[in-house]
């Protein structure tokens, strides 16, 4: 048994609010460290890529949008494929996830070597997306396989907190590199490449090939301090389910894992609630309009909710372990509903702060918790594919929700659309309350 904190003290030790817990397995911390390092690597590129393409290479925004949208559709398919491959057994989770991490790291070299060639840039961006799609489900499956079932919530909380820390640090690192080098984008790509490789190294060294087996736990990498958050980030990790895809293309595994009624209920509930979410970007836009916020402050809004997410992920996970994961998952969506209702109130700084906090609560209480809720319903050999199906389903549902809200905004204007969204979420929440199995499924 591995005790991460040296004493049995509770999670309120001030200097390390992240990941301080009594029984977080070393593998989970190692996976968290991999995600942290990888997110620094990927978010620093995300932060500078548009600038690089448009200012550095003179690409038109239309072309950029084309590149950006091109591979989103493939991601969902690749995620399902990654889950399926990982479930073939023989410790493939780490191999598949590692291949994904490595591919994303190598894509930075591709950006560097492509110079200005559009084809090269497109290929590098595609490689990054593929890597991201492939690794997500095996990684989450490894978390579920290495943590004891009764502590899954906290394990995911620790992982997501570390992940979000990386997402917050990435743009900051990019800013520092650009500042130090007077806008040398290639230096950003090189640093990102090195950081990405480091993630692969940590995965290879500290994550056992077969996390399901009883582990000889490694002394985990030191849990990092939370990000100081001094720097606007374009979009720090609103949702871990990466990019939505145009159409659900079920891989053959999907029906098999969906045959389990308990898991099916989780997927249906997550999809239902996902379809009633409007997308963070709309929330931020509404906030900005309501407050008449200077546009320069706009990038700071997602930072607020990400910081809140980071701080609350572990406590929410612990709560989920104690109360059953259904409760925080539903309450988290309740927080989102409260955020919608708050936005309907007359705008003011207090409203903005409240909305950001509620959004952070929403992610903390639902994101990792959903994985912890679903995993026990899945067979060990179907973990990765099951989680992939769940994540893909949720991402597609959110895409539908955002599109629906956009249409409602166009038809009725922002406030009626928001009221409708709140109503839809309330209905979905009620339905999910009934659909989700009670305590027994944990």
């Amino acid at each position, binding site marked *: 048994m591995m005790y991460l904190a040296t004493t049995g003290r509770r999670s309120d030790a001030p200097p390390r609010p992240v990941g301080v817990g009594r029984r977080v397995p070393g593998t989970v911390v190692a996976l968290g460290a991999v995600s942290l390092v990888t997110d620094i690597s990927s978010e620093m590129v995300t932060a500078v890529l548009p*600038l690089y393409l448009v200012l550095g290479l003179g690409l038109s925004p239309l072309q950029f949008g084309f590149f950006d949208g091109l591979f989103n559709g493939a991601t969902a398919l690749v995620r399902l494929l990654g889950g399926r491959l990982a479930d073939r057994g023989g410790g493939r989770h780490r191999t598949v996830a590692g291949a994904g991490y490595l591919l994303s790291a190598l894509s930075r070299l591709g950006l560097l070597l492509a110079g200005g060639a559009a084809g090269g840039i497109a290929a590098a961006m595609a490689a990054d997306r593929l890597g991201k799609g492939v690794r997500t489900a095996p990684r989450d499956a490894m978390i579920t396989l290495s943590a004891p079932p009764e502590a899954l919530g906290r394990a995911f909380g620790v992982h997501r907190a570390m992940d979000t820390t990386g997402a917050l640090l990435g743009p900051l690192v990019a*800013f520092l590199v650009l500042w130090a080098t007077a806008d040398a984008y290639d*230096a950003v790509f*090189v640093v990102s490449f090195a950081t990405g490789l480091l993630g692969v*190294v940590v995965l290879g*060294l500290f994550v056992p090939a077969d996390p399901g087996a009883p582990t000889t736990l*490694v002394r985990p990498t030191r849990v990092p301090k939370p990000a100081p958050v001094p720097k606007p980030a374009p979009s720090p990790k609103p949702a871990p389910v990466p990019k939505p895809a145009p159409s659900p293309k079920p891989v053959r595994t999907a029906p098999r894992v969906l045959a389990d009624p308990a898991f099916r209920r989780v997927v249906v509930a997550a999809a239902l609630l996902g379809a009633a979410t409007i997308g963070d970007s*709309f929330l931020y836009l509404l906030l900005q309009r309501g407050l008449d916020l200077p*546009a320069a402050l706009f990038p700071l809004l997602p930072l607020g909710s990400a910081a809140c997410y980071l701080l609350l992920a572990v406590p929410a996970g612990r709560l989920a372990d104690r109360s059953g994961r259904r409760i925080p998952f539903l309450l988290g969506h309740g927080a989102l509903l409260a955020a919608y209702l708050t936005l309907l109130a007359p705008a003011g700084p207090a409203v903005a702060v409240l909305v950001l906090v509620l959004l952070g609560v929403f992610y903390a209480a639902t994101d990792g918790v959903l994985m912890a809720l679903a995993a026990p319903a899945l067979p060990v050999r179907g973990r990765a594919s099951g989680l992939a199906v769940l994540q893909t389903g949720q991402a597609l549902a959110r895409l539908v929700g955002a599109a629906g809200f956009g249409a409602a905004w166009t038809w009725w204007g*922002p406030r009626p659309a928001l009221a409708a969204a709140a109503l839809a979420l309330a209905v979905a929440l009620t339905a999910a309350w009934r659909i989700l199995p009670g305590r027994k499924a944990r």
Partner: protein
Amino acid sequence: MKSRSTALVLAVLVLLGGALGYVLHARERGGGPQLVAAEASFTLEEPGLYYRDTATGRVARSPGGVADGPSCARFYAAGDRALCLRALPGTPARTEAVVYDRRFTELRKVTVPGIPNRARVSPSGQVLSWTTFAVGDSYAAGRFSTRTSVLDLRTGYLIKSVEEIPLTIGDTRYHAADINYWGVNFAADDNRFYATVSTGGRTHLVEGDLKAWSARTLRENVECPSLSPDGTRIAFKKKVSADPVAPWRLYVLDLADLREHPLAETRSVDDQAAWLDDGTLAYALPAHGSKATDVWSTPADGSGTPSLVLPGASSPVTVPPASR
């Protein structure tokens, strides 16, 4: 266990050490071009074709070709005023819009988020407008959206974003979250303006009224409108192909009867064309095999053939002799 820690330390040293080395190397080498001001000898008093010189990033004048003007990513001048957009270093992207008089004395400086895109000055020089690409803004995460500002020098009033101007499409008042404006340019009365509005995947030409603060669409599929000096026609780029590499063609629209005709230029132009005079348009096109652009011109009536005006240039604008 111990060997693993050793391996990790080694990996950190090699990878982060290598990265640090590269950063230091890049620092030595020097990054992007520095932003410089205009030389004292460089003014708008001399008539000619002003443009941005790709090699130096500075404003230059033809004939002469001396790039002694300020560093600008986009440049335009009319009346007694010039507008220069420059990208500030670092991330997130910010644009500095600088208003100059004819001697390139700085009159006003505004910093807005985004990457420089379009700049225009009303014929009188009194109303200025510019567009930036805002990154990571809003509804389409990762996509670009635009942000267009209007600066009225008569009152000093700055509209940081025109996005919330009441818009009428057809006969109905229109709302949407994904409304983007770009390429605003003002008519001689310093009140009426034309621009592109994009929403729901379509673009429209809008006619706006600054005083009344309203806008209505005139026509679909019009981007980057440019009003002719006589105020009767609008040059614009029209999306003619789904090919993302070459989607546009330059057209001219007659405002009296809303009839349009294509120009002789068949290559895809991603620029807000500039009227050199009432019969000629100039625009930038990517130079063959390099990152630079060249300025070409073609007759506005659709006749003739395009001709290369200035190699290694963009943001062309005709400055007539001083009107005094």
